[in-house]
């Protein structure tokens, strides 16, 4: 087996005040793997993602990226937020060039890199627009583009398509898969849509609340592009739904 690019080892998070957001999570991500974290709110999926990003401290266990423990945010782990987090004072082109410039690349080189990703994300017409002039789907393309332009090895995506309408969401899912295949990026993708998880992921990790923990990991063996209405897809959906709901039932009991 290949050395994982990212490992969470017995990772736990207890917030000051005693709320346990995550208990004893173990997760290995292989290079180039696409993993979806799914679960009801309070299952710790966003906490785990934010700890991988380095925005939250780990209170037990550790998170290791390419052999080194995570101590804070870094450009090797690019984050795509649900609310975009674009810099409103920069044009689209300069938003994408922001990372390379921050890491000390010469400005001309950074802008040339940015132009490549502006084109890749289909944003040529908007290169000199500001974020507030773009639709949600366009903004999310910029957010993905800036993570790619910054040579991130792992993309951390926190319900990135959750605020988009259904059609835009499907288009972006498709584009994300294309980019993922082309770049060999590792992706950790948080969602609460079972269909989205099964459609996108190599592996779906099911999490459950009270305290947050990982309850199952299912490899999705369907060929891509996947047909969400096929019987095989539905079998997997039923199976994962039962894992999600089993837990609710126990909770209620």
């Amino acid at each position, binding site marked *: 087996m290949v050395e994982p690019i990212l490992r969470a080892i017995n990772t736990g998070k207890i917030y000051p005040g005693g709320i346990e957001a995550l208990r004893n999570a173990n997760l290995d991500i292989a290079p180039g793997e696409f993993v979806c974290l799914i679960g009801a709110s309070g299952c710790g999926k966003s906490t785990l993602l934010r700890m991988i990003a380095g925005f939250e401290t780990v209170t037990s266990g550790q998170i290791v990226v390419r052999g080194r423990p995570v101590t804070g945010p*870094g450009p090797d782990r690019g984050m795509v*937020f649900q609310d975009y*987090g674009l810099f*409103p004072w920069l044009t689209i082109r300069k938003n994408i060039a922001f990372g390379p410039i921050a890491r000390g690349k010469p400005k001309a080189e950074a802008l040339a890199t940015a132009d490549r990703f502006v084109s890749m994300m289909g944003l040529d017409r908007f290169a000199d627009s500001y974020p*507030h002039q773009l639709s949600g*789907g366009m903004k999310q393309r910029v957010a993905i583009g*800036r993570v790619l332009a910054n040579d991130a090895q792992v993309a951390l995506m926190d319900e990135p398509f959750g605020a988009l309408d259904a059609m835009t969401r499907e288009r972006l899912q498709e584009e994300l898969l294309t980019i993922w295949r082309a770049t060999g990026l590792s992706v950790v993708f948080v969602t609460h849509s079972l269909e989205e998880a099964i459609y996108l992921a190599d592996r779906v990790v099911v999490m459950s609340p009270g305290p947050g923990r990982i309850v199952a990991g299912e490899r999705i063996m369907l060929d891509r592009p996947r047909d969400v209405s096929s019987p095989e897809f539905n079998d997997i959906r039923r199976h994962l739904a039962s894992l999600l709901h089993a837990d609710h039932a126990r909770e209620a009991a």
Partner: protein
Amino acid sequence: MIAVVEALPPDTAPARIDITPLLRIIVPVVLLLSWWGATALHPGGLISSPQEVGTALWDLAFGGINDDAFSEMLLPDLIASAGRVYGAFLLAAALALPLGMLIGRLRIVKEMLEPTLQVLRPVPVTAWLPLSMIMFGIGPKSAFFLVALGSFYPILINTIFAVRSVEPRLFEAAQMLGVSPARLFTKVVLPASLPGMFTGLRLGLGLAWVVIVVGEMTGVQTGLGAMIMDARQLSRTEIVIAGMAIIGVAGYLSDYAVLALGRRLLAWSPQHG
């Protein structure tokens, strides 16, 4: 989920008459007519009529009517006042912007300075007048101080608020793209708070024009405030009103210029662009 519908093209209905200029002129015309009516009904009253003020304005600008101490003084007085307004405003901005950023971002500075500033802030500029004349003497220095003081607080308060209310998400975004904590200030805080600081500067400059008359009560010889004070002592009400009108127009034009500048520099901000 809200479906994204392409925005409809701007109103393409058959050409309609734009009534905006009409809307803008109604209130001034009504006010002017009421003023004229009121003074016409009380001839010889204490308030001058629009015609008298108009004549006074002409004489202030070009002379040739009264040929007294006020004739042809509009330009020199306007220049003197504008010099004080902009000078004092720049001084206030030079102090309030950095101070506001420090108070807004550094807890230790906030705890040390904020209580003092909050107690000093409600003290009106007029209340500072006697003290200012003792500290800075009778004359332009005192005027300068008072105008700067009036313009200082709106810049300070808006700067504090602007640097404090930067969206936390932007710090996360910058850090995950490789910005070190030490550089977050220049890469995120400063650009993100420009619109708020701009609002403070605009209010501060506006207030400088408001305070200029009080400032020029400190015994300065020139300036629109000094002109109004002299006219008041001589019961030249038409000059007083002419002076008020000049300050109003000057303040308006000054604000218009600042606003246009803001629109250029802050095109990225939905509030300004």
